[in-house]
């Protein structure tokens, strides 16, 4: 039951975390999931199926979900898909419109109340299948990483993972093919997290279907021929984890971008705030007539403070752990010149067949 009767009739119970919210609330006050989902699903009187799309930051989750939903809207692959609620179309509109202008969509922010959520009713027309209510959130990769590092940091993620009927795990095939271990480690952590959230004993394996999707496969087209072999060879830690703890895993390769151009970006050296003082503690001359409030206060406070030693954030140790900022000529921006979708629908088809 999602909308309560009786003494708590004014509440709407969140689908994801079970928190009671006021009837007028737009987002859950605890996990920021859209409550429109609850209201619409209550009308359908069917249990919704959550499909989580997870992956590292910058692997392509937003682009994948956007194109997938757009394909479903256009009845690709014998699917019939109906978006429920205008908010469900936001992500595909954002992705398609950005890509049509040859830019990638903006980075998904970590704040959960800013995430895209999509609620679609989906069925296969030829098979005469019943409708399935699908809910697919577009989560930020950094939020996933933070949640794996310290569970319950983002409770919406832990709730989503435990309630998911199926999972699409996107892995950067290009990086893996180049020998980077980062995609393998992230995927291993993700699967380990899912394993721990399920809380099964050692002799039980997780039955929730997981589609491992090799994203950006245009960098290494050979993975289309044998995705499973590619994972075994290049993402061996992930492969072993799947073999050991997951009963229902399938491997796919996908690509969205047909061709990429590369452009350099000018003026990327770190700019100190224009509002702070120069090193000789004299106020900077500004072109604008009025300085911002922060600038005025900063300058005024500097005059009142005792001279302090320049104790900056730099530590004393010499070991660098971050890449130095790239020089101006090294800052390269990839430009998607055209799209050529390949392997986008297949992982989703498989998940639907499993659930």
């Amino acid at each position, binding site marked *: 039951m999602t909308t309560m009767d009786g003494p708590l009739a004014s509440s709407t119970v969140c689908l994801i975390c079970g928190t009671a919210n*006021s009837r*007028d*609330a*737009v*987002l859950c*006050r605890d996990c*920021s999931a859209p*409550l429109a989902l609850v209201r619409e699903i209550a009308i359908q009187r069917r249990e919704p199926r959550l499909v989580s799309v997870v992956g*590292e*930051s*910058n692997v392509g989750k937003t682009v994948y979900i956007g194109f997938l939903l757009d394909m479903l809207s256009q009845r690709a692959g014998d699917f019939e898909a109906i978006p429920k609620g205008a908010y469900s179309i936001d992500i595909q509109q954002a992705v398609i419109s950005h890509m049509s202008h040859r*830019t*990638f969509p*903006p*980075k998904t*922010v*970590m*704040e959960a*109340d*800013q995430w895209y959520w999509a609620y679609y009713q989906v069925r296969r027309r030829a098979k005469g299948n019943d409708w399935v209510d699908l809910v697919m959130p577009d989560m*930020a990769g*950094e939020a996933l*990483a*933070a949640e794996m590092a*310290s569970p*319950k*940091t983002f409770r919406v993620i832990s709730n989503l993972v435990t309630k998911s009927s199926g999972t699409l795990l996107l892995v950067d095939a290009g990086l893996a093919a180049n020998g980077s271990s*980062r995609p393998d480690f992230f995927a291993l952590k993700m699967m380990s997290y899912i394993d721990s959230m399920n809380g099964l004993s050692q002799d039980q394996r997780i039955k929730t279907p997981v589609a491992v999707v090799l994203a950006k496969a245009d960098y290494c087209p050979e993975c289309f021929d044998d995705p499973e072999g590619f994972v075994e060879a290049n993402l061996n830690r992930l492969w072993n984890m799947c073999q050991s703890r997951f009963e229902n895993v399938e491997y796919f390769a996908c690509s969205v971008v047909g061709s990429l151009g590369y452009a350099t*970006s000018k003026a*990327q*050296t*770190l*700019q100190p*705030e224009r*509002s*702070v003082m120069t090193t000789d503690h004299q106020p900077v001359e500004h072109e604008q007539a009025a300085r911002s*409030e922060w*600038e005025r206060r*900063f300058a005024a*406070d*500097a005059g*009142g*403070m005792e001279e*302090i*030693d320049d*104790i*900056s*954030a*730099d*530590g*004393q*140790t*010499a070991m*660098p*752990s*971050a890449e*130095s*900022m790239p020089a101006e000529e090294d*800052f390269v*921006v990839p430009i998607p010149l055209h799209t050529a979708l390949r392997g986008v629908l297949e992982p989703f088809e498989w998940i639907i067949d499993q659930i």
Partner: protein
Amino acid sequence: MIQADQAIFTSIRTHTGEGYRIIAASSGVTVDERSELTRRSPSHDSLCSSADGAVAVIGYALQSGRYCVSYSRYAGREQTARGGQRVYTHMAILDDGRYRKFQYSPVAVGLSLAHAVGQTLTLKSEKLSVLELTVGNPDAEPKCSGFGTACDEEWLMRVVSAVLGGRQLVVAGAGSPLEMLEWVLRLLPLSMRAALSSSIAAKWSAGRGIQLAFVDEVARQKRPSLAGHGVELFDVGSDVGPGESDIDSRCAGYVRTLGRWWREDRLSDIVACTNKLTRQVDIVELDDLARGWSEKLQQVAESS
């Protein structure tokens, strides 16, 4: 000099990962604090302004019992080139005693933090040393040059009343939000200031758990979301002043008295009275307290 733990939250690409996270911290920052700081810190596209020199300040209590004040600004383009600037947030974490030296003002801590860290935006080590913050002169004569709203006194009273009543607010359009927040805090008893979580120039987000947020503006399509979260919007920049919206009756006397003092430029009286109130007080006691202050100050004025 006040010592504080520090942490840096931003997006960089390293050998072990990519994206927004705590990239460096001093050893006193606990695991639970790191988790909470990660959840509440501003990430991509979280500052109200897209100007290069944009700055945001956020202050809140941590579940560990300490307090965090963060100072965010832009640090160049986001490295994956998906548009927008990289937000670089430097945080000071202080215990109650040290935060009290700043009179629980995130503005004071934020400015001191900005001076302490200077223009450093690169990192040489994940392990940071303890931060040394300078406290401003506590005996300095308080001043106020206005908040840049349609009606400063009325809006000040309504914001203070709402804060005392425990309501969540977004204040949009104040020309001088730093000054306005400082005076909202000064009108609160010292004992009540620490509990107030506030932000300036960071976009409102439900996950940040901020009671009083100052923003440039709130887009029309975002307003229902605020209402749905039980957050009130005060559009202080509009030409229309506050209506007859109620001041909380439990503290109306207190709010109106201090509002009148503010209007009469009795700023030192405000600070002297509220800073002395260090014990925990209930909202219903405030009217009597304000009456007592008025009488006492009246007697002092008459005797001199």
